[in-house]
């Protein structure tokens, strides 16, 4: 059976070059990067080389990169670490309503400690309201965190404008760039942000490595106390292999950015153009043009996401959904809800997230196998039956 992996927002396949670069550090080059002997030196040099490469991907200085174990840790470190660093200044945090759980839940945990939280609303396309952002920031605000782009619906935020608003009020601005990095050019100077999160497993490195870029001068209290790794900002022995893989992946992303975006964008556009011709009552979620090149997300009316996902899996196609039934917490997506999509329609959420390995044939295959699946589930659906009766 044909296998079509379209869940690249969950994890991208590691590039062979990244894996190759990692292999020595899973074998003979097992030294601890903090050791003073030669084996330690080899590990240290590899980590520092990776730091240069990750920094280059976002136009940053290498010494401003803090390696973490994943994007979630980078986001937690930013939200908790920056607010802790300015505890005496204030206790108010501003986020968008569509942040990833690793930002949203980190802020919720601050809320339990007495912080105040403001969620900036988004429009139907998932774009933040800049006026609301401006009025949300007050004298007590110590951090604004708005994601660069939302992976679930693909919407790219006006980060430069948002960061400028925060800068005018002298509030640190963090952006979660996990979904955007690798397919959208990012330059921290141009964006005007003070902190930015990355994850290796969405840029074709491996799971278990991430990074937080923190602009020099922004105060941060570490979350992991230990040795003086990562400039004393993140204790713990480095995941050398994972970091090396991330470095290689970042280097390749920077080199091939334009070609990647064009390739992914072509697949996305073919899906977005092709599917509505074959499936009625289909809604694109997210912004029609300000959109990640790899994201084609929809809500399919009258049916539920898990059923689509399971039937697609039987056809060899791997996707994800934001429906309540597919979430382990059994809650519908807060992102779709923030976009004003009715809960009923959000149950039919489906996300096709493309990767470098995908081809136009993959799109054509989905366009062939997916419409009959929708039809089959609709034939079972009491909501569809009602709709047909009411339409007459």
């Amino acid at each position: 059976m044909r296998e079509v992996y379209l869940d690249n927002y969950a994890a991208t396949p590691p590039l062979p070059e990244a894996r190759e670069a990692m292999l020595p550090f899973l074998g003979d080059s097992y030294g601890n990067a903090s050791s003073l002997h030669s084996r330690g030196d080899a590990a240290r040099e590899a980590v520092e080389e990776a730091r240069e490469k990750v920094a280059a991907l976002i136009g940053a200085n290498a010494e401003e990169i803090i390696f973490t174990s994943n994007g979630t840790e980078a986001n937690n470190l930013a939200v908790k670490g920056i607010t802790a660093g300015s505890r005496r200044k204030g206790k108010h945090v501003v986020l968008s309503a569509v942040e990833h759980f690793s930002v949203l839940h980190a802020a919720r945990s601050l809320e339990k400690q007495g912080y105040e939280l403001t969620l900036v609303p988004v429009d139907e396309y998932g774009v933040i309201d800049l006026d609301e952002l401006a009025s949300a920031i007050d004298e007590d605000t110590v951090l604004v965190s708005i994601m660069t782009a939302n992976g679930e619906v693909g919407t790219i935020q006006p980060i430069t404008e948002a960061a400028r608003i925060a800068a005018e009020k002298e509030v640190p601005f963090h952006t979660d760039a996990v979904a955007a990095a690798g397919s959208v050019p990012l330059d921290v100077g141009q964006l005007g942000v003070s902190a930015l999160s990355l994850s290796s497993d969405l840029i074709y490195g491996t799971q278990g490595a991430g990074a937080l870029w923190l602009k020099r001068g922004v105060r941060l209290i570490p979350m992991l106390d230990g040795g003086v790794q990562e400039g004393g900002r993140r204790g713990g022995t480095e995941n050398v292999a994972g970091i090396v893989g991330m470095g290689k992946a970042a280097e390749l992303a920077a080199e091939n950015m334009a070609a990647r975006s064009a390739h992914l964008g072509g697949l996305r556009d073919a899906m977005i153009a092709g599917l509505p011709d074959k499936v009625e009552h289909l809604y694109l979620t997210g912004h029609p043009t300000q959109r990640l090149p790899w994201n084609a997300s929809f809500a399919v009316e009258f049916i539920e996401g898990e059923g689509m996902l399971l039937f697609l899996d039987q056809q060899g196609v791997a996707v994800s959904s934001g429906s309540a039934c597919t979430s382990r917490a059994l809650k519908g997506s807060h992102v779709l809800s923030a976009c004003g999509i009715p809960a009923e329609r959000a149950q039919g959420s489906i996300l096709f997230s493309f990767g470098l390995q995908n081809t136009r044939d993959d799109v054509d295959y989905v366009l062939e196998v997916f419409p009959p699946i929708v039809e089959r589930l609709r034939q079972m659906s009491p909501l569809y039956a009602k709709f047909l009766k009411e339409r007459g």
Partner: protein
Amino acid sequence: MAQYSDEVMDHFTNPRNVGEIEDADGVGEVGNPVCGDMMTFYIKVDEDERLEDVKFKTFGCGAAIAVSSMVSEMAKGKTVDEALQISRDEVAEELGGLPKQKMHCSNLGADALHLAIEDYKSKKGQS
């Protein structure tokens, strides 16, 4: 998908008795699409008070569809009073178990069937 038993996957992939009964003797509906699962059961009852036909339509996850299918099979041929004895736990057992988090929200098939039977009984009482 590893979370479901073979029986669940079989009933999900090839659900039995999907459809509506135009002149049903009883109809029962449970759940709502907002919470994720919604089921409508239709029954046809013969002169011996047996369920000669059971059909359903379901909006929901794989478990919800499998549960509906299993309930329809279990109920067919039973008397209405026997069918009222079909419990959620029994349905889950027949399906080789359901994931814990799906036990409450998706295992509504027996409830929908019971509502259809009550609907039948109340209609009969009125006539």
